[in-house]
């Protein structure tokens, strides 16, 4: 469904993505994991067209999507930080997003599960600027799921939410997984990832280190918990770097 082909990206002199080739298929739910600065966010931003790759191609349903925008009608994106125009009311923001989708030819069923579960109807006339961080996250989540997209991209979805809202959101994600959607999540909360995803894309130093089923990964590490495996992977990296530095010093 989504295919990255030899994607390279540099920010100035800093290499962020180095020869990324990967394929995501419908029905998978994928955790993108890696140390800070490993290129996770850039990968997602390239998928959403916010960042343009220096080299390489990106396909969505076998169409090259470089500098096009229609494909994004199939994606629901929940950003990590939600800041909206402060004087716009919740109701107006939702109206606007709906009008944007409709003008792009979308006429599916509106999914108001989260809108109802988060009780946004009660505060729909509040300006966005008066909302707490958690509440704007709720609005962001409700918008991401609202148009029944084939692909869901969730950036640290539960980070700013209270425990009840986080549970509601996780239930909703499970429900969408069951419908066979492609769900992509980045998070540092391992228990969430264990619960919500079945594939792991591990990124390290601008490259894809591996992309495999979480069950296979666990088998490989003798049934160890996911949290321990991730910690081990990240530490191993740190250890390796230390070794290379030491060997260079010796030389």
């Amino acid at each position: 469904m989504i295919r990255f082909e030899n994607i390279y990206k540099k920010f100035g002199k800093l290499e962020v993505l180095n020869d990324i080739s990967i394929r995501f298929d419908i029905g998978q739910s994928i955790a993108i994991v890696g140390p800070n600065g490993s290129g996770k966010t850039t990968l997602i931003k390239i998928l959403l067209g916010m960042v343009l790759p220096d080299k390489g191609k990106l396909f969505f349903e076998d169409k090259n999507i470089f500098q096009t925008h229609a494909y994004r009608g199939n994606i629901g994106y929940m950003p990590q930080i939600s800041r909206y125009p402060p004087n716009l009311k919740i109701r107006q923001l939702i109206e606007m997003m709906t009008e944007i989708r409709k003008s792009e030819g979308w006429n599916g069923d509106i999914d108001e599960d989260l809108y109802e579960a988060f009780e946004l109807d009660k505060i729909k006339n509040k300006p966005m600027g008066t909302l707490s961080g958690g509440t704007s996250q709720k609005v962001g989540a409700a918008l991401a799921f609202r148009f029944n997209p084939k692909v869901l991209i969730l950036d640290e979805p539960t980070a700013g939410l209270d425990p009840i809202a986080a549970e509601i959101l996780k239930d909703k994600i499970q429900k969408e997984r069951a419908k066979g959607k492609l769900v992509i999540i980045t998070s540092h909360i391992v228990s969430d990832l264990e619960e919500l995803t079945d594939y792991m894309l591990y990124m390290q130093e601008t490259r894809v280190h591996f992309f495999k089923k979480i069950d296979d990964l666990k088998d490989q590490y003798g049934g160890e918990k996911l949290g321990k495996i991730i910690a081990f992977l990240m530490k191993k990296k740190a250890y390796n770097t230390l070794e290379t530095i030491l060997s260079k010093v010796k030389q």
Partner: protein
Amino acid sequence: MRKVLKYVLYDILRNKFLLGYTILLLILSGAFFGFEVDPGKGIISILNINLIVIPLVSIVFSTTHFYNSYEYLELLSAQPLSRKTIFFSQYLGVSITLILAFLVGVGLPVIIYNGDSSGIRVILTGILLTLVYVSLAFLAAVFTRDKAKGIGLSLVIWFYFSLVYDSLVLALFLNLSDYPMEKITVLFSLLNPSDLARILVLIKLDVSALMGITGAVFQDFFGSTNGLLISFLALISWFLVPLIASFRIFNKKDL
């Protein structure tokens, strides 16, 4: 485009700063006309608002708005919208609201007290100056991701066109006073949107007599239909060129 623009307008029109700006302009213009018996002198005072306050507010407000909307721009660019729609809805949203504030705060009093051709020209150049400085603000804003740098850059632009440029031209003329420079002054004034706006109004007020030979040359050039056309075209390119440049950058920019 219209759909996104509608909501950008909803948002900015409820901005308290913009409301304060409109009221400030109203009070200033009311006072200038109220205290002057001769509305022509009122127009000259209004001109100073046009040349200092309008550019400053336009450029700072637009840059700040752009940076404050950054996360929202990111979210919009994750929707099925082209960069073009996103960029121009922001540009139009900001310029329409600023022009509206100007029309209420300055346009209305000018029409009431001095609705002749010089009044019309003040309004027209005020609108164009707003567009010019909003464009320059967007150019500064797409240039760097750092908010402080962006606002700093836009202030430098304002400072340059409002104060530094004239001193530079003056210094040049003083040093080259042995040569006939009158015609070149016309060229120099085309290179600064604020100067252009100033001259376009002053020419209408018959105060060019105070400007000596240069004034006569100006009267010759800006008073003629061709000169007028060229100078308005110059003002229009002063907002179109930075606008197109900033869109080009935005279109390829990593958000």
